[in-house]
């Protein structure tokens, strides 16, 4: 999972923070509260997750409850990947 965490962090940093390491982001920071993700950002994030991890995210999973921080995403992916096995 260490890997997934890094991959997600890399994606968020490149894609939403434009590589700026000066913006510190902890695993528990809310993307919404930090203003990192807007309405398009959610779609970008979902497209990335589906492609990278070969999963299908259902409509009822499109909620901040699963997608709104690095930590939540890692947990979400764990269950997703497990259930698809």
């Amino acid at each position: 999972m260490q890997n997934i965490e890094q991959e997600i962090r890399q994606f968020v940093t490149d894609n939403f923070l434009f590589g700026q390491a000066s913006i510190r982001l902890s695993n528990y920071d809310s993307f919404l509260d930090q203003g990192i993700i807007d309405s398009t950002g959610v779609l970008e994030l979902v497209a990335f997750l589906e492609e990278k991890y070969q999963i299908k995210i259902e409509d009822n999973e499109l909620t901040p409850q699963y997608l709104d921080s690095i930590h939540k995403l890692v947990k979400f992916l764990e269950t997703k990947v497990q259930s698809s096995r």
Partner: protein
Amino acid sequence: MCGIAGILDFTGRRPERSLLQRMLERIRHRGPDDCGIYTNKQVGLAHARLSIIDLPSGRQPMHNEDNSVSIVFNGEIFNYLELREDLLRRGHKLLTQSDTEVILHLYEEKGEECVHDLNGQWSFAIWDSENEKLFLSRDRLGVRPLFYTITNQAFLFGSEIKSIFALTQVSREIDVVALAQLFTCWVTIPPRTIFKDILEVPPGHSLTVKQGKISVRPYWQLDFTEGSEGAGGANGCEEQYAEQLLELLIDATRIRLRSDVPVGAYLSGGLDSTVVSALIKKFTDTPLTTFSVSFDDPQFDESSYQQQAVRFLDTNHQDVRCTCEDIGQVFPDVIWHTEKPILRTAPAPLYILSGLVREHGYKVVLTGEGSDEMLGGYDIFKEAKIRRFCMNHPESKIRPLLFRRLYPYLQNLQGQSNAYLQAFFRVRSDETKNEFFSHLPRWQLTSKLKSFFSDDVSSQTASYDTYEELRGILPQAYSGWDGFCQAQYLEAQFLLPGYILSSQGDRVAMAHAVEGRFPFLDYRVVEFAARIPPTLKMKVLNEKYLLKRCAGGLLPPSIARRFKQPYRAPEGKSFFNGARIDYVDDLLSPDRIRKDGIFNPLAVEKLVEKFRQGRAIGTKDNMALVGILSTQLLLEQFVRNFGESATYAKHRAGNSAICHR
């Protein structure tokens, strides 16, 4: 419509004509028909003319009988015929048929208070030689531009900043605080402009220079206080409001057709411009030519509605089709004219459209600007209303569904789950009492663009707070106004003059010597609209309800019933759509970004990469791109290589012409 410029020398010397000539050359696009220069004592006035009223004798600078008062004037006074009658009755002798002369004589009689009598759009400068006083004024809503600066030796003014920069003693530097303002609320806050030490006369203000002392004061203010004066009797029932509004709009349109040249109209396919065209057709004898811009991309194109309006109103219609490539191509010219960064490309198609108008021999167009602000059309008003409604019951799962009624044209937003919709529009507890409640989501999103600033600019602007500055200039009565009116005020006071009427209005129209006229911005309409109960402006979520009620019958039903579609244009695709564009490559290259020092090279590189890969589809990314590229173009064209032909825009060193007097 014209361009003006001038110099008041503090050392008492008479300004050299060659300097005034240089200032004028920079703004000859505003007035290609004629030009004039006048010097008297320590003052020089210059004028580039676009002849619209009194073609043979309306030359400027113009003087009173004994040459003690002289004026240069850009704009129109629409009630000049009535004012002229009054002046004649009071014994004034007027030698021309022009509106310019009316201002001169009103000034003679009333001094600085003369502006209260004027119904129009203006910026002018009067040199009162006996009192050795220079008097500048700008119209109530800020339709016409007026900039100035103060150097050790002189007070300099002009219709555009480039006329002031024509003088080599003026330094040209980006003001990073202004940039922070613009990267928050889309505009710079007057009198500040994007250039250090260049100021603008704020809308509704006058300025005087006397014995080296400069004073700026408001003569008019937007006032949404219920029952205050100037309402034109705005009380009573819905029926009465509708009747009064229509009556005012008819008259506002009628006097805006006063011109000695033919007048056209813009037709976007939306409610406001169609109302204006319908009023012209229905209530005047003016033959009407309409102009519109259409887009290849169906996401932006409104031509089917434009065609319906054309058929219904039977106008002579001209259209220009605008592609992404067109926008990419004209963008440097557009920034040469806006003279400030912009966050959207929407001014570019309007620049192309004014070219079409000019090609067809028209100098004047009526348009629908001001209606959304004053009569409640914008989605931001609707959004605030729904946010307040949800705020009252934050746990409701049903209320957030209303957000789907917002922005029906934004596909990315429409694709969101309910949970995310709720999250995006949710109101934080510290926001409920915030005076900028309606605008916080927009401004907070825009503020994220500041993360692209270089370390240097970030540290220079770190302690600056745009909200704090805005808070300090709100009118005293503001806190007592209805939330809907507060939102209207923020739009009409800041975005309207700072973007809609300038970057998207005067500057791109005057680039091709086309003058816009705005019936909805007649001050009588504005004062009346300010006092219409908010529930009649937007009835539940039906925007511009009263306007539809009073003028809907004049329109094709499909347009009267239409949901508001804001005017937008393709953004990222205009610059990254296959073929490389030289100036985009150059100005956004890491090297160039580093040298210019405003933005962070790594962040810009990542942003550009995202666009090149076609992954940048969001509002924020597109605003960032357009904001950064326009800032870089501004640096290139105004700071680095001012007026040099090597820059990317088509403009050259300016047209020279020999001026009279």
